[in-house]
Every structure is written in structure tokens, then in C-alpha cells.
């Protein structure tokens, strides 16, 4: 098994697919960001007739010319999509779909024609462009892949700032007077380069996967473009590595699908565990927020009841009467607060603030009343406030306004004050 992995051919393929994955992942993340993921797919499909035409013109199999042909027809596909969207009322999805289906139809017809024409039995080897022939990768192929991956990297590094702005805010880029149209076309051409280099190795569908999966997966881990490109490249590399190793071990299966499935697994793991937008993180954040918010609501309600009755003890029934909570929920909230040491349960199904709890309750109530006051006094400011569920207003409005609001609350004697002995104890 180890010998299998260390065989010369396997190492060549391993290197080739990994570098290809890294390059495609990097340029593909731009496509994902620009919401053009399927344009990459269309380019992969559109490249097919170019290969056949190059073969027809040359009359023999010459990889360089076939790749140039593929690049030309891939770029033609992009231009047609753009032109259809620009000049006719065909929408983008249909335009992509048309290129996606008519071009490979033409390519397939041409390749059949070539097959039926060549009488001496020498197949043009065009089929490998469709489904890919990973095992057939040779050392020059790897050099070509490396060169074009480096080329893409160089272009991305040189035009990093431009691509960044175009990817996130086309309108802003246009207002800066940048040639957005050409930058976009350049970006798409980079994708076309990556696609065309990869086609003979992994085929049309797999190429689309190599473009989309790493970028989409990397998005779960970061919000910064630089890191996104890096992670996407790393994911692409990893996809190639794992996929090639597995397909070398299970030689029954074609390599392409195994590579794609390794990419899918990486994507799934990212979606679950990604530190920025992953499902787990978002679930945890949601839980934390709910807990924090529930605690604030409980303290608020308890403080309200206590200050209204003038007694330190508050019964659960009072809380139930004030809020549309279920008894179970009140119980849960009290348990949470009790375990954080903010309230203590008394024997008689009543609760009481601990000193720390009282300090916190006053803080929360102040924040809440500042919100109320802000929304009544300065309703026009509410629109600019990002998070209406945050504890207090001080992150969003100027100190002068807060002072004003505080004074106003004090005038209405709605400004909660700590009892002096608690305040001293807290200090």
C-alpha cells in the first residue's frame, strides 16, 4: 500500500492535483464572493469546443494548442454571457445555462466527428477533457499547472486591492473610476486559466467543484479576504492531496469523483465547525445570547417588582404576572441566575437579589431605561443603532446625549440608585 503511494506516477499526480486545487481554490473564491460560482462551471463547459477546434486545425494532438483553444472558447463563453445580459433581456441564469449546454453540445458533436474521421484508429483523446484522466498526468503537466498557478497568484497579488474592492463593492469601485468591467473580465479570465489547465486532469464537473468548494468552505472560517484566499488555497491543496491518496488506495474508483467528495467533506466540516460562520459557532452564539438576554430580562422584571412592592423578596407568581413567560421558563431563568450567583432562592418559592445581583440588576435596569428614554426622546436615532438587543445605549450614542437622557430619567425619578449600604459593600 505504501509502495503504491510512493510510486513515481502517484507522486506526480499528487503534486499536480494539489497545486491545481490550491490555484483553483484561490481564484475560485473570487467567483464565490462575486456570486459567480456557476460562471466557473460555464467556463469549464465552454472550453470543450475550443479543444476540438484546435485539434481539427492542427490535425494532431498537441496539448498546448488544445489548451489555448480551450482558453479561447472559455473566454468566448464568458463574453457571450456578459453580452446576453447586457444587450438582450435574457437574464444571467438563462445566459449561463445557454453557454453551459450549447457549447458542450458543440464540443461533443465535434469530438464525435473527429473520432469518426480518424480512420487509423488514433483517438484524439478528447474524452479525457470531459471526464478527466487524473492518472494520465505527466511531469510536464505538473510544470504547466505550477506555472499557471503561480501566474494566477502573481496577478492576484499585484491587483489585490482592485480585486478586493470589485469583489465586495462594485458600485464603490466604479465611483473610484476603475475599469470595473475589465477587472471583472480579468478575474473571469484567471478563472478560465485555472479551469483550462485543470480540465484534462479532472474533467468538467470536477473542475467546477474545485473552483467552488474550497472558496465556499473557507468563507466559514474568516471575514478577511487575505485569509479567505489563503484558506481556500489550503483547502484546495488538501482536497487534492486527500483525494489523490484515496483514489490511489481504491483504484477501482475514478479519481475525479473521489477528489470532489474529499472537497465536499472539507466543506461539510467547515460548515459545521467554521470559527466565523460555522453552524456550531452560530448555535453557541445564539445560546449565549439567549442566556444573557434571559438573565437581563429576569433581573429587570425582578428589580421592577421589588422596587414597586418595596420588598426585597419577589415571588415567581409576581414575575409570571408581569411577563408572558411559562412557569417552566421562569424556573429555568431563576436557576441560571442562581447558578451565576445573582439571585438566591428562599424556601417560600421566592427569590432575592444577592448583593452582586443587585448591582447587576441596577446596571441592567439603567441600560434598559436609557433605551426607553432614547427611543422616546430621539426616535430618529433608532435607525442608526445597530443592535437593539444590546444591554445599553452607550456603544451607539454620544456621551452628551446619554447625560441628557440620564438627567431626564432622574427628573422623572426613574433612575435606579443602589441602596447606599449595598453600594459601599460593592466597592
Amino acid at each position: 500500500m505504501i509502495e503504491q503511494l510512493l510510486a513515481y506516477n502517484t507522486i506526480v499526480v499528487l503534486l499536480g492535483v494539489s497545486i491545481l486545487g490550491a490555484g483553483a481554490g484561490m481564484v475560485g473564491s473570487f467567483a464565490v464572493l462575486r456570486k459567480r460560482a456557476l460562471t466557473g462551471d460555464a467556463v469549464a463547459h465552454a472550453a470543450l469546443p475550443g479543444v476540438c477546434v484546435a485539434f481539427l486545425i492542427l490535425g494532431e494532438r498537441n496539448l498546448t494548442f488544445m489548451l489555448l483553444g480551450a482558453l479561447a472558447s472559455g473566454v468566448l463563453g464568458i463574453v457571450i454571457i456578459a453580452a446576453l445580459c447586457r444587450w438582450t433581456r435574457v437574464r444571467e441564469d438563462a445566459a449561463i445555462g445557454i453557454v453551459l449546454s450549447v457549447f458542450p453540445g458543440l464540443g461533443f458533436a465535434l469530438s464525435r466527428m473527429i473520432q469518426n474521421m480518424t480512420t487509423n484508429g488514433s483517438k484524439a483523446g478528447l474524452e479525457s477533457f470531459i471526464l478527466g484522466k487524473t492518472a494520465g498526468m505527466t511531469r510536464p503537466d505538473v510544470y504547466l499547472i505550477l506555472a499557471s498557478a503561480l501566474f494566477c497568484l502573481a496577478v492576484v497579488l499585484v491587483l489585490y486591492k482592485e480585486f478586493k474592492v470589485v469583489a465586495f463593492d462594485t458600485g464603490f469601485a466604479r465611483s473610484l473610476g476603475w475599469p470595473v468591467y475589465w477587472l471583472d473580465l480579468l478575474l473571469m479570465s484567471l478563472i478560465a486559466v485555472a479551469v483550462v489547465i485543470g480540465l484534462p486532469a479532472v474533467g468538467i464537473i470536477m473542475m467546477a467543484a474545485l473552483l467552488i468548494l474550497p472558496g465556499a468552505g473557507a468563507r466559514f472560517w474568516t471575514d478577511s479576504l487575505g485569509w479567505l484566499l489563503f484558506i481556500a488555497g489550503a483547502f484546495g491543496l488538501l482536497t487534492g492531496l486527500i483525494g489523490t491518496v484515496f483514489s490511489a488506495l481504491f483504484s477501482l474508483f475514478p479519481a475525479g469523483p473521489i477528489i470532489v467528495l474529499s472537497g465536499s467533506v472539507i466543506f461539510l466540516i467547515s460548515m459545521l465547525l467554521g470559527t466565523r460562520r460555522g453552524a456550531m459557532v452560530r448555535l453557541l452564539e445564539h445560546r449565549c445570547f439567549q442566556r444573557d438576554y434571559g438573565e437581563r430580562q429576569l433581573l429587570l422584571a425582578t428589580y421592577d417588582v421589588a422596587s414597586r412592592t418595596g420588598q426585597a423578596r419577589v415571588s415567581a407568581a409576581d414575575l409570571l404576572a408581569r411577563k408572558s413567560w411559562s412557569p417552566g421558563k421562569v424556573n429555568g431563568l431563576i436557576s441560571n441566575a442562581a447558578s451565576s450567583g445573582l439571585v438566591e432562592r428562599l424556601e417560600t418559592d421566592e427569590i432575592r437579589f444577592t448583593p452582586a445581583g443587585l448591582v447587576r440588576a441596577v446596571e441592567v435596569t439603567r441600560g434598559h431605561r436609557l433605551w426607553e428614554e432614547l427611543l422616546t426622546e430621539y426616535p430618529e436615532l433608532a435607525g442608526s443603532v445597530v443592535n437593539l438587543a444590546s444591554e445599553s445605549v452607550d456603544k451607539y450614542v454620544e456621551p452628551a446625549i446619554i447625560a441628557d437622557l440620564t438627567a431626564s430619567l432622574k427628573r422623572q425619578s426613574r433612575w435606579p440608585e443602589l441602596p447606599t449600604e449595598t453600594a459601599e459593600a460593592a466597592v
Partner: protein
Amino acid sequence: MSASTLSPTKQAQTTTSRTKYASGLSPDWLLPAVYFLILLFIAGIWFRYLEFSTKDTPKALGIIGIGILCSGCCSLLGCYLVLRRMSLIGDAISHAVLPGIAIAFYFTGQPYGIGIMLGAMALGMLTSFLTQSLHSLGRVSEDASMGVVFTSLFALGVILIQLWGPRAHLDADCVLYGDIIFTMNRTVPMFGHEVPRALLALVPAAVLTLGFIALLWKELKIVSFDPALAAALGIKVWLVHYLLMGMVAGVTVASFESVGSILVVAMLIVPAAAAGLLTDRLWQMLIWSLVIAAHSAIFGYLSAAALNTSAAGMMAVMAGVQFGGAVLLAPRHGLLSRWLRNLRLSVRIASEDTIGQLYRAEEAAALPAGSQLAAIRPSSAPVGIIGWLSRQSLRRKGLVATNAVGSTELTHQGRNAARNIVRAHRLWESFLEANFDLPSDHLHEPAERMEHFLDPDLQQQLDQQLAGRQIDPHGKAIPQGVAVPTSAERPLPG
């Protein structure tokens, strides 16, 4: 202010144009029929020319028939996909059904039949569901989530087929490209005849498609054009959506054996997109897409036979060729007709500018010499082809003539037409001055543009608004309008 005064006329215009297109036997209705018959005629001649031997003729017709059946079903459903801007989900589904086929094959042991169909339909709905949930729960953009889902499912399908398929000629290549030429050879006995196996899937698929569209005609229509309204009316949009996805998957897989997934995608999207360029009504779009799909199949087969190549590939190419034709030649939305419309508008504007200039020159000549009002703007006679065309059109309509000295002057009729133009110009200048705070040297430019689009109705409304004002902001008289027959023939601006 101006918007409120203009809107009633605009509405009236829209209504008239709508009633014009809705009328019974309009050219819109006849066009697909004529197109179909002409191309059918050409195909017949070509068919003869290819000289199929007598033995092969029924087989060739059979292959064409199966092609029409496949592409017809796909194109009908494709109309709804294109209208809902979901063309690419058709592409995604046609790739993603592969594992469904493999799993169904594993359980039924047959590479065709109802099991495969159900497996594919389930996977079709699953594809749509997964795409949606990745988009909404995973916050992945819609196109990326589609790409993730269909490439992964396709890869899974290829592996499953590799695992279970080799026993029964089921491989990824055949799913991608199909083999329509051999469909007539694979037959099964039925009602005492040898029936092509592909028909066992295709005929039910066609019946289902037609039934689906007929039964859910209204629902599909509302959901396609206004999903929010559909939801408000109590139509279960999600149900219609998933049924459509299931139908697409079913038709896809029914066509696989014959034409393969590439052609299925072409037939789902291309005829519908072409039909969308050719008409604005749903049922005409369906008819157009059927016609285009049928001719893609016919000409695809014929050209494939002539070039000795793959029929499925050529069918996709022929669909593309017809789409290209629609892009160029479509009656209302085609590039050619839009170009002609723009040209005609340019010529009209150029000729109106010309007679307006001549009128102003006459007006200046009639004033006492040295009068300030006699100063007219330097003439800018339209040049180039547009200028030439506009001068031809003016002479043809008898609006200008060459006088004894050899220079151009207005005829009586031309003077009336010019008076309307100048009236429109000066009314608009006065209107702008009265309602907007603009310096007087900013009035001419907008009026120069608007004068070509103010019909007598609007002029009258402006006149009423201005309470019969006689003098424009530059101190020149606003001429009284004259009924000119030519102005009624003006095409709607657009």
C-alpha cells in the same frame, strides 16, 4: 408635478398596446405556426436529399420522434424555470439525479423503468431542498450552494454507478451523452409490437408533463410571475416549487437514456430562453418553446447524419442556433428590431429638428431687421446617414421642397408640422420656467429633447396648465397647434 399630469396618458397608452396584443388572430399567434411549417418544409427537403434507404427511413423518423418527445417535455418545463430565474437549478438537477438512479438501480436491478424515475425525482427534490437549506441555514450564496450540492451529488453518483453499475451498461458517459441512435435498437415487446424501450419512460413523462401544466396552469403562472401574490392568495408556493423540481428530475431521467444530461440541460433552458425573447405571453412562450425544441430535434438529427456525428450534440447546437436567431431577429426584443426602432427614432428626431430650424429661420426673417428676437441658434443640420435618411423622409412626405433659388424651404404641410414641434418646444420651456427654479439658459436643452415626445394631448394639457400663455421664456411667441395627420402615426417612444 409633471409626473401626475403625465400619468393618465401613459396609462392610456399602455392599455391600448395591451389590447392590441391580446386580440385574437394577431401575428403573434400566427408566427410560431408559420415558423414551424417553413422549417418543417426545409427539413423535408433535406431529409429527401440525405437519401435514407427505405429500410432506414422509419428508423430515422423514430429517432426524430423520440428526440422531439424528449426535447418537448424538457422545453415546456424549462419555460417555468426560465421565468422563475431558476434555469441553473435545471442544470444542477440533471447532474444531481445520478445517485438517485444508482440507488434505484441497486434495488430494482433495472437500468430503466418506474423505479429509476422515482429515485431521480426524489433526488431532484433533495437537490432543491439542500440548495435552499445551505443558502438559508449555512448563509452560503445561492449559486455557490447550488454548485456545492450538485457537484458533490454528481461525484457520489459516479462512484455509486461505478460500484453497482458495470453489470448493466450504466456508466457516467452514457448518462452525460446518451445514445439516441441506438434507442431504436433497444426494444421491448408490447401489444404484439417491438416498441423502443425509451418510449416506456418518455410517453408517461410527456403525459405527466402535459397533465401537470394543465392541472396547475393557474398556480404555475402566478407562482412564476409573482410568488408574493401567490402566497397571499393561499397558493402553497413551496409545494408548487417542489412539484416542479420533481417533474424536472423525472423528465430529465426519462430523457437520459436517449439524449444524455447535456442535451437535457440545453432543452430545459435554450428553447425557453429563445421563446422568452419572441413573446410576452405565457402560453405563446410554451408554444414557441415547443416549436423550437421540435426543430432542434429534427435539424439536430439531420445535421448529425450529414456530418456523421453525435445527434444529441447537434440537437443542442441547433437549439443554440435558433436561440441566436431569436436574439437577432425577435420581433420586439431582438437586436435587429431594436436597432431599427432606434434608427427610426433617430431619423424622426433629425427630421423634426430640421423642420424646426427652417421654421425658426422663417420666423426670424419675418421680424423687423435688428430685432433681438431674430437671433437664432446656429443651425446644426443632421449629418451622416441619419441626416441623409431624414432629408429623404422629409421630401417623401412632402414637408420640404427645393425652391427656385435651390435652397430648401418648408412646404405648407411642413410648416404646420414644424409649428407643432416649435410649439411643443416652447410650451415645455414655459412649463419648466413656471414650475422649476431653473436659470433661463438651462431651459433649451431639456426642451430640445422633450419636443419630440409631446403629442397633441400632452401639449393641450401643458397649455391648460400654463393658462394659455402666449410668450415663451425667451420672449418668442408660442405658435398655435395645427392638426397634422403625420403626428398620429408616430411610433410610441420606447
